[in-house]
């Protein structure tokens, strides 16, 4: 049984006169110890999706359909009290901006210990010992526990956040753009740290990023989000080597690489639809160079075998793969 499965999940924000369909029918599953990457551009609903899992949404958010099943429990039916106990103990997070995720007026160590003591009957002393050894594990001197966040550098804060996410030994860690704010060398170190921790502790992970390279290097499975939906998903090797959705193909040909041959890049013209007035047909159709009349209809998720799915009418059409869609 999957550790986490989202089943046709839909979460909208209620504005005064309209719905913003931030998550609009997403299905996704994740096994123990597995890492899935969610990739998408700003405004595609990826942050809303992960906050839905933890039920940490603003008050105007409404779940309008679907289920979130975690370890057999339907999270949307769980009373708030139990949901709160589940947070961090079972599902923890690594935040995008470590600077802002740490409260500036408390010691870093205390903030890590706080998460532990909220869920386990421990004395302050015991908690501190545990935090200290965790600090050493992520490569921070244990004595640094007593420092305040402003005394940490960016990379150190991100390490502290990693330590914090591990403190209750969760089954699942959600990492929201874990390295976006960091320089490339530190990013590399942090990503490696996360990977090492995962090998040691064997937790499952959801990594959210706009950076295809980060996803490619860290995740076994990838889901590509566009306008509140997952439009393609599969294991990362097949998705990166054989994308079956014009959007994914476009994304992959839109950024340069440091290694390998130099190719002319192409961009995806236009912009994603407004989440409060989505088009009737395929969401990507207005920007798609391959669009045909059939695309006026919303495509169904097509199973391409080998756990590879794509929401394109032509996903199994060999012609799509042969056509050079992007780049003049």
């Amino acid at each position, binding site marked *: 049984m999957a550790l986490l499965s989202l089943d046709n999940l839909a979460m909208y*924000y209620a*504005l005064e006169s309209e719905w*913003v369909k*931030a*998550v609009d029918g997403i299905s996704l599953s994740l096994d123990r110890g597995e890492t899935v990457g969610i990739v998408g551009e*700003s*405004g595609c*609903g*990826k*942050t*809303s*999706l992960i*906050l839905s899992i933890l039920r940490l*949404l*603003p*008050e*105007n*958010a409404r779940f309008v359909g679907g289920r979130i099943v975690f370890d057999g429990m339907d999270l949307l039916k769980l009373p708030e009290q139990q949901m709160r106990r589940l947070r961090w103990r079972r599902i923890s997070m690594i935040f995008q901006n470590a600077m802002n995720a740490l409260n500036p007026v408390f010691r870093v160590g205390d903030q890590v210990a706080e998460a532990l003591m909220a869920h386990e009957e421990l004395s302050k002393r015991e908690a501190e010992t545990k935090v200290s050894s965790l600090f050493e594990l992520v490569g921070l001197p244990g004595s640094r526990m007593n420092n305040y966040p402003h005394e940490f550098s960016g990379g150190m804060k991100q390490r502290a956040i990693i330590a914090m996410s591990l403190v209750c030994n969760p089954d699942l860690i959600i990492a929201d753009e874990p390295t976006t704010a960091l320089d490339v060398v530190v990013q590399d170190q942090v990503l490696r740290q996360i990977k090492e921790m995962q090998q040691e502790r064997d937790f499952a992970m959801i990594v959210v990023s706009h950076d295809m390279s980060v996803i490619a290097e860290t995740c076994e499975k990838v889901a590509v989000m566009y306008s*509140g939906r997952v439009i393609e998903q599969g294991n990362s090797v097949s998705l990166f080597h054989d994308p079956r959705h014009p959007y994914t193909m476009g994304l992959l040909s839109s950024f340069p690489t440091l290694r390998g041959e130099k190719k002319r890049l192409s961009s995806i013209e236009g912009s994603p639809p*407004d*989440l409060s007035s989505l088009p009737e047909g395929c969401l990507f159709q207005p920007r798609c160079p391959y669009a045909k009349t059939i695309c006026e209809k919303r495509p169904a998720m097509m199973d391409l075998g080998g756990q590879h799915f794509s929401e394109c009418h032509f996903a199994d059409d060999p012609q799509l793969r042969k056509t050079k869609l992007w780049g003049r």
Partner: protein
Amino acid sequence: MAASKLVSFLRTYKQNDMAVLGLVILGFSCALAVLAPVISPYDPFEQTNKLFSPPNLEHPFGTDNLGRDVLSRVVWGTRVSLLFGFGVAGISLALGIVLGAIPGYFGGLVDDLFSRFFEIYLMIPTLVLIILIISIFGTNLFFIMIIVGVTLWPSNARITRAQVLALKSRAFVQASVGSGASHLRVIFTHILPNGIYPVIVNSTLQMGNAILTEASLSFLGLGDVNQVSWGQILYVAQFHVKTAWWMAVFSGFAIMMLVLCFNLVGDGINFVMNPRLRRRTGDAGS
């Protein structure tokens, strides 16, 4: 373009009913001030032998120690208060923008001097200073207006400075500088239009403060005796609270309403211009 901006401003402003209430009171007060000679039933200076008569049909707000009609005095007092409020806020706004924009934009020594000055200003109890000056130099209304205006400008200057400082490093301002625009052009077309609204809000609040200050000074016996002002009425009233409560109650209420409307309007402008104050909601879930 300007018209459409005004329309959209008013549309958001309308959502805040308290702010609308403030605007209504303000309109009413302005009308009273303009129409005072027509509306007020008696001459505010006219002394009669009906001393201390409690509110009745003839004198809805009663009469004072010299037999003057309190209602008429309150109506006329609106003029002085409004004039004082606008005058003080105007002086403070003009000084504040100029003296705040210069240190903010040019920085360096001028800015250091301004910061030092402001720190010192904060430690000076302004009311005591105003009292000292006015008690020595006399209580002419316009003089008081200038003195109060001159003591209030630093807060406008501080806000202007902070705004200018924040805006001048913004990329769109840098872009304008980089394209060769002059300092004045940058300040007047990019910085001030984008940064002025907190200063406007503060000025609105200062109008209320100015009116309260005038009332306080009058209450302490430092008002202009040649003017009919609410503070003057209260000054006299304090000696007769036990016998003639109406003298104190109505004029004080008038002050409160006028100050209230400025505060509500200030909040209203802030509500429109500062989207962060509006409802926290998630939208396009980035």
